[in-house]
Each structure stands twice: as C-alpha cells, then as structure tokens.
C-alpha cells in the first residue's frame, strides 16, 4: 500500500494541482457518479486550495487536505447534484461532461458502492482508488482504525453479496 505524501522537493501549487487533479476527479466521480459534477467539485476543492495555498502548503498532508475538502463537498452535494445540474442547465443551457462513460459492468460496481452508507462508501473509495492502507484512511477521515476496518469489512461483504462475487 502506498500512502499519499507531499513531495518535499516539488511543492508549488501548479505541481500539486497537476499531480492531484485527476485522482481527485476520480475519487469524486466514484463517490458521486456524476461525470460533470465530479469535475465541478474537484475544481472547487482546488480553487479553495489555491486561495489558501500559503496555509495549505504548510499542512502536513496537503494531498489529503484537498481530498477531504472534495469528499466533504461531494458528501453535501451528492443527493442534490443531478437535480441541481438540471435546474442550472435550465438557466444557462447545457454542458457536456468531458469524462467518458464507464462500461456498464464497472459502472455497476461503483453504483453499488454509492448505495453503501456514507462512511463505508468513502472508505471503499479511498481504499481502492487511492490504494490507501487502513491507517491512512483512518488518518484522512479522522476516525479510529477500528472504524475503518469494520466499515471496510461490512462494505466488502455487502459488495460481494450484491454483486454476487466471492470475497
């Protein structure tokens, strides 16, 4: 497992942004299922990081910080995202998402992830997408390692049952 660590040698905002933007889009895409909304949320998270860069750059884990901001934004908007996008589109026309669709088989996996309770889906997304350890996920989400272990175990059982695969 690899942990997300800031690169002490290349730590300007642009480098940080280039390295982390697409992974954050992927994380939000996995959590929200919205191809267009995931880019909006990732952009807002990086705008926040850019505006407060002097402070964020001194944070012990800026990569984790921007992911937590993105997760929080995704969490608060998840239920409203598609409907609000439709509402906004009525005002100013339509937009096209730049992200391609996934195969139905793989989309089904992430749809089932999104049907999990919030904590479990976030743990699963960080575990698989970011290849993070239990300790890393616990540190990022600010919860106990045992909470992450339990959430991950419950989530894996639910995923396996729902998707009819073996653990």
């Amino acid at each position, binding site marked *: 497992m690899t942990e997300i660590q800031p690169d002490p040698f290349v730590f300007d*905002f642009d480098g940080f942004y280039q390295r982390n933007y697409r992974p954050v889009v992927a994380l939000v895409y996995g959590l929200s299922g919205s191809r267009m909304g995931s880019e909006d949320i990732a952009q807002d998270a990086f705008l926040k990081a850019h505006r407060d860069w002097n402070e964020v750059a001194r944070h012990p884990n800026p990569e984790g910080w921007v992911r937590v901001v993105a997760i929080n934004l995704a969490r*608060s908007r998840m239920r409203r995202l598609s409907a609000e996008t439709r509402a906004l589109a009525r*005002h100013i026309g339509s937009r096209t998402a730049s*992200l391609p669709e996934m195969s139905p088989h793989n989309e089904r996996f992430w749809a089932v992830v999104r049907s999990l309770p919030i904590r479990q889906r976030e743990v699963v997304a960080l575990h698989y997408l970011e290849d993070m350890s239990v300790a890393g996920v616990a540190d990022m989400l600010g919860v106990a390692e045992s909470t992450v272990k339990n959430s991950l175990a419950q989530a894996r059982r639910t995923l396996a049952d729902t998707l009819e695969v073996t653990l």
Partner: protein
Amino acid sequence: MKLDDLARQATSDLLQAAHAAEIAPIDTVRRHRQMWIAAPAVAALVALVAVSVMLLPGGSAPPVATASTIGATTTTLPSSTTTTAAAGDPWLEPGTSWIRGGLNGVYDDSGELITDLEFSGIGILGGGRASAWDGDQGFVVVTDQVLWFGEGGLVETDLPVGPIVEVERVAGVPVVGIGSLVATGPTTWFDLTTGAETTAPESSRTLDGVTYQAGGLATFIELPDWTGVTRGEAGEPIPPFDLPELVVMGEGEELIRLAIGSEQRPYAQVHDFDGRRIIVSAEPHEPALGPRTVWVIDLECAECTVRIESDGPEWFDLVGTLEREGELRLPILP
C-alpha cells in the same frame, strides 16, 4: 470472480475515465466557475432593467416590493477578470423574522422579494448557509464564488467565500463571520468596511461544522446510526429507521432532544440559531429538489413553532437576534 478482481477492473476503468479530465490553468478554472455562476446574475440584471423600463412614465409595471434601482457596483475580484454586475438594493420591512433564498432570489417571511440575485446552489458552498442580515441595514449574501455586502445596495467584494456564520456590528462597524468548508474548520471574521481580518465579536455566534452556538447554547442535528438499514436503488433508506434528532445543549448538559423529519423526509439540517430561535428542516432523499418541511422554533414558546413548506433546496436565515427571557420549553412541531 473475486471481489478484489472486480474492484481492480472497476477502479482501472474509473481512473481511465478521470484521465480524460482536462487540467485547465487554475486562473481559467476560476474564470470559468465565475462565469458559470455569473450567468444567472446577468439574467437577474436583465430582469431588473426590464422592471426599470416598465416603471418609466407610461410603463405598466405591476407594484413590486423591491426597489428597482440598479446602482453602480465596485468589483474587486481577486483574478484579473473584470465583471460588472448589480444585485439590486435589498430592503427589509421592520419586524421581519426570517428570510429565505433559492434559485430565484431572496424573500422575506411574508413572501416579498428582497433581491433577485440568483443562486445556482452549485459551487464552493455546496449547501452552506449563504446569507445573513444584521437586523439593521447590513446584508451579506454569497453566490458560490462571490461574497456580496450591502447597506442598501449589494457590492461585490473580494472576501473569501464560505458558509456565512453571522453579520454583526462592533462599535458600528459591520463584521462578517465566515465558516470553513472543512467540517471542523474555524470561523474567520472580517471587517466588511476594510476587508481586513478581525477578531471575533464577544457576542458572536459560531458555526463549527454542524454545531451552531449562540447565547450560551449549542444546537446541532444528531444523525442516527443507519448501519444495517436497507437501502433502495437510489441509496435511500428503507423504513424502519431512526430519525435524526435536534439537540440543544447548555453548559455541557443536554436540554432538549427532538426527533425531526419522517420516513419520507429522513434528513435534517439546522439553518440558523440565534440563542433562542432555531430554523431546522427535514428533507427527502429523492427527489433531490423535492419539497421539504422547515420549522422556525422559539425555544421559549412551545406552541409558537412556524411550519413552512419549501418547494426545493432553499436556505433560511433568522433576521436579528431574539433575546432570551425565560425558561426553555420542548417545541411542538406542527
């Protein structure tokens, strides 16, 4: 097939999809997001011009509650973008208890339009509290990327945006408390006349993630443990499940606990708290923009709760502060 093999495939596909995301320069992103948010404001400007034209001699405008003056607006955006937008001159009738805002503007508790500055609901705030009134003429409102302030006419500022905690006056100077996007982040206070960061007023309300504090009391929504609750296709909880509860704490003791919502509206959030009054709402899982129920609670008057039916994802704010006078009572929700 094993779960981990399926997860690897799905993860690879998702990462590949995300790889198509364009990494635009951050200044371009900012301009794009501002334009995206500004478009409804331009529509509002057009509407205001139309109203102004109709009010000219010979026009046939119906009576409107809001002032129609379009004032010159100073723009101090942090980027090099130059934008001129007017938001009208908000006005509030004396005795107004609360205001509400949504996609089409801000309204007072009688339903009169205060300002038709529009809110997309999408952007940096993501559902945070978006406005506050100091009870006099000071009004702050956030439209995703821009914080507006006015004492009779809204002006775009370059202050950072975030959930608005409160607007207060300290020795006559208006200050605004802005919360953090990170749930446990602190509130930062700014002098609205200079834009400089300032210290928190002694009497200030605070918002630490989901806990509102004012007048020595704290209130928040305690979410139930839905572990094990069956979920539908859209992720909605299937009854039976516990409802969220509104909790009021004082000096470390729980003073009030009240279930909020229903099986059809299983989510709840506090919109504002002034130490005595609370605005709280219950929301459905789906449809996301579906109707919700809002209550304005007076903690000293159980029967005084006002119930409001809201058509969509509006925000609600108390105007001014109602001082504590007596004992707290368990509210009755109509």
